[in-house]
C-alpha cells in the first residue's frame, strides 16, 4: 500500500457497506413476518433495536471511510515497535497454541466418558491399549528400524506376569504394573542379545518364532498357567485401595461407592479403567517424546538410516538396538498388565500372531515413527471393526485390501513423521556475517 492511498477516504465502499448492512439488518432484525388468523402481519421491532442498528451502521460507515488512514497508523505503530524483527522459532515448533490445544484435548478426553454409553467407553479403553502397543512397537520398528513380528510375546509376558503374580502371591495391580513392564523389558533384553546381530528379514523371522514360543509355552505349561483354560478372576485395579465392585473382595477394602456415599454403578469401573488407560497412554507419550529428544532417540533413527555410518562415528550398534528392543518391550509389558486387569481373564488365545500383525499394521498405517499417526491408526483399527460387524467374515480381506491401498496411496503412512526443528543458539547468529544474520536461522521448509 503506498502512502498516497493511505490518506484518501473511501467514500464509495463506505456507502456500499453501510447500505448492505442496513438492508440486511432491517430485514433480519427490524421486521418480522407473522400470520394472525389467516392474514399476514408485519411486526416492527422495538425502538432500542432500531437504535442499535443505526449505531452499527454509523460505525461500519466510519470504519470503511477511514480504513486507509487507520491501517497506515497501525503499520506505523508496528514499524516503531522496538521488538526485534528476527524471530527464532521455539523448540516446540513455534506454536504457542500447541500446549493449550493439547491440554484442551486431554481435558476433553477425560470428561468425555461421563456423557457417553458404557460400550463406547469400553471400546475407547481397548483402543487406548492398542495406542500404547502401537507407540511401543513404533520405537522398535518405526524409529530403530528393527522389524519385530513377535511383539505380542512381550504383551503376553506383561499380562501373564500380573495374572500369575496376583494368583500365586496376591500382588496388587499397581506393583504388578511395574513388574510386568520390567519383566517384558527383561525378556526383550534376553531375546535381543543373540538376535540383534541379524538384520531385516532374518530378524523378523526370529522374532516371529519368539512370539509363537511364548504363546505355545503358555498353552502347554498347564500346571502353572492353566494352559488353554487361561487364568480367570484377575483382580481389577483399585484407586488407592478403593475397589470398584459392589462389595469389597478383600477384607479391609472399602468399595469406591461406599467411600464416597454414592449409589453403586458398574459404569464407574469402566470409566475408571478408561481414565487409567488414558493416563498410561499420556505417560507413554511423554516418555517417548523425551526419548526422541535424547541422544538415544537420535541414535535409534541414525541406526535405521545407516548403521555403517553409525559405527564409523563410534556408536555401538548392538547396544543401541538392544535399548530400542528393551524399551519397546517394556511398553508392551505395561499394556499387557493393564489388559489382564481390564479383562479379568486371559488365555493364550489373546496373544496369537494376528495381534502382532495388527499392531504392526497400526505402525505402518500411521506412518513409521510418527506418534500422532500411530494414535490415529490405532483408533481406526479398533473402532472400525466395531462399526463393520456385518462384514466380520471379510475382516481380514478388507484389512489386506486396506494395506495394499495404503501402500499405493500413501506409502509413508497417514501422518508421516515430521522432523522437529531445533533452535540454534541466538548469539550464534551474531557471529555470522550480516547477510545471513537477518534471516531466521532455524526456519526452513
Amino acid at each position: 500500500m503506498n502512502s498516497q492511498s493511505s490518506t484518501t477516504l473511501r467514500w464509495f465502499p463506505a456507502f456500499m457497506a453501510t447500505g448492505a448492512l442496513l438492508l440486511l439488518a432491517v430485514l433480519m432484525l427490524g421486521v418480522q413476518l407473522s400470520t394472525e388468523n389467516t392474514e399476514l402481519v408485519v411486526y416492527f421491532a422495538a425502538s432500542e433495536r432500531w437504535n442499535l442498528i443505526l449505531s452499527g451502521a454509523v460505525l461500519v460507515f466510519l470504519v470503511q471511510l477511514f480504513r486507509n488512514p487507520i491501517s497506515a497508523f497501525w503499520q506505523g505503530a508496528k514499524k516503531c515497535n522496538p521488538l526485534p524483527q528476527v524471530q527464532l522459532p521455539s523448540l516446540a515448533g513455534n506454536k504457542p497454541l500447541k500446549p493449550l490445544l493439547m491440554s484442551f484435548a486431554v481435558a476433553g478426553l477425560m470428561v468425555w466418558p461421563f456423557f457417553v454409553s458404557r460400550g463406547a467407553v469400553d471400546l475407547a479403553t481397548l483402543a487406548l491399549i492398542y495406542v500404547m502397543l502401537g507407540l511401543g512397537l513404533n520405537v522398535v520398528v518405526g524409529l530403530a528400524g528393527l522389524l519385530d513380528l513377535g511383539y505380542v510375546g512381550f504383551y503376553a509376558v506383561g499380562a501373564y506376569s500380573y495374572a500369575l503374580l496376583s494368583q500365586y502371591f496376591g500382588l496388587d495391580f499397581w506393583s504388578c504394573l511395574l513388574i510386568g513392564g520390567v519383566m517384558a523389558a527383561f525378556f526383550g533384553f534376553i531375546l535381543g542379545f543373540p538376535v540383534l546381530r541379524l538384520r531385516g528379514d532374518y530378524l523378523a523371522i526370529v522374532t516371529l518364532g519368539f512370539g509363537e514360543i511364548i504363546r505355545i509355552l503358555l498353552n502347554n505349561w498347564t500346571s502353572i498357567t492353566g494352559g488353554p483354560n487361561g487364568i480367570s478372576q484377575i483382580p481389577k485395579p483399585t484407586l488407592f485401595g478403593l475397589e470398584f465392585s459392589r462389595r469389597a473382595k478383600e477384607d479391609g477394602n472399602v468399595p469406591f461407592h461406599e467411600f464416597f456415599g454414592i449409589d453403586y454403578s458398574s459404569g464407574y469401573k469402566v470409566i475408571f479403567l478408561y481414565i487409567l488407560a488414558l493416563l498410561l497412554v499420556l505417560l507413554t507419550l511423554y516418555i517417548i517424546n523425551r526419548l526422541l529428544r535424547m541422544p538415544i532417540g537420535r541414535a535409534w533413527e541414525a541406526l535405521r538410516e545407516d548403521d555403517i555410518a553409525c559405527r564409523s562415528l563410534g556408536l555401538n550398534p548392538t547396544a543401541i538396538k538392544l535399548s530400542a528392543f528393551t524399551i519397546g518391550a517394556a511398553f508392551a509389558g505395561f499394556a499387557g498388565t493393564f489388559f489382564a486387569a481390564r479383562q479379568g481373564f486371559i488365555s493364550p488365545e489373546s496373544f496369537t500372531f494376528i495381534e502382532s500383525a495388527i499392531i504392526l499394521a497400526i505402525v505402518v498405517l500411521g506412518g513409521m515413527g510418527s506418534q500422532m499417526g500411530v494414535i490415529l491408526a490405532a483408533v481406526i483399527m479398533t473402532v472400525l471393526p466395531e462399526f463393520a460387524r456385518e462384514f466380520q467374515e471379510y475382516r481380514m480381506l478388507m484389512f489386506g485390501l486396506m494395506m495394499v491401498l495404503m501402500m499405493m496411496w500413501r506409502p509413508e503412512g497417514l501422518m508421516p513423521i515430521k522432523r522437529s526443528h531445533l533452535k540454534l543458539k541466538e548469539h550464534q547468529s551474531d557471529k555470522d556475517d550480516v547477510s545471513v544474520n537477518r534471516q531466521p536461522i532455524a526456519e526452513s521448509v
Partner: protein
Amino acid sequence: MSQCLLEASDLSMRFGGLLAVDQMALKVGKGEIVSMIGPNGAGKTTVFNCLTGFYKPTVGKILFQGQAVEKLPGFKIARLGVVRTFQNVRLFKAMTVLENLLVAQHRHLNTGLLAGLFKTPSFRKSEAQAMERAAYWLDKIGLTEFANREAGNLAYGQQRRLEIARCMVTDPQLLMLDEPAAGLNPNETWELDKLISDLRKNHGVSVLLIEHDMKLVMEISDRIYVINQGRPLASGTPEAVRNHPGVIKAYLGES
C-alpha cells in the same frame, strides 16, 4: 616426521582367492596430511576398511598411538579417534543437518536414561554444549542456514562438507577421507583444499586421504603412498612420487 600416530605394517587382506591388499605398510605422523593414490581397484578403500575396523585384516599389525587396534570392532576404533568419510556419502539422509551433527557426538553426551527423562541440569548442559559445537561446525562449513533441512536434500558438495563436519564434531585425532573431491566442481575442490588445510592447522587433526584429483593431492599432501594391484608401488614426497617412473607408468600417465 614428528610423532607417529598410526602405523600399519605388513597389512594383507584376502577375500577367498583374491589378495586385495598385499603387505602394505603405512605411517601417518601427528599433524601430517598423507595421501594414498593408485588406479581404481588397487585396494585403497580396502586399506581404509582395514584401518577403521570394517574389515579384519588377514595378516598385519595396526598401531594407533601405540595401541594395537587390528582386532577391535569399528566403533571402538572410532572412539579412539579414527573417523572416516565414505566414497559414496553416508549421511543420515532423513534426519536434519543439525541432527546429523548431534548424533555424531553421541558418545560425548549424557546418555543417562533418567537424566534425559527428567531433563536434569547436567543433561541440559551437555545438550547445550553439543548444540554449540554443532553450530560452530555448521558455521565453519557454511551450512548454518540449512541447519534444519533434511541432509538428503542438500546439494552434493554440501553433503560432502557435512560428512566432514560430522567427523570433526567427534573430535578425532585422525581424519580419513575417501575421495572427498569426487563429484565436486573445481571451485568446490579448491574450498575443500582450504578446509582440509584449516582442519590440520587449527584443529590439530591428521589426515589420511584417498583421492584421484592430482592437483589437490600434490598441493596439500606431505607424503604420498602409491598402491597398485594391492601392492605398495612407491612412497615419498609429492615431488618424488610425481617423478617416479613406475608411478607414471601405472597411474599418472606420461604427459
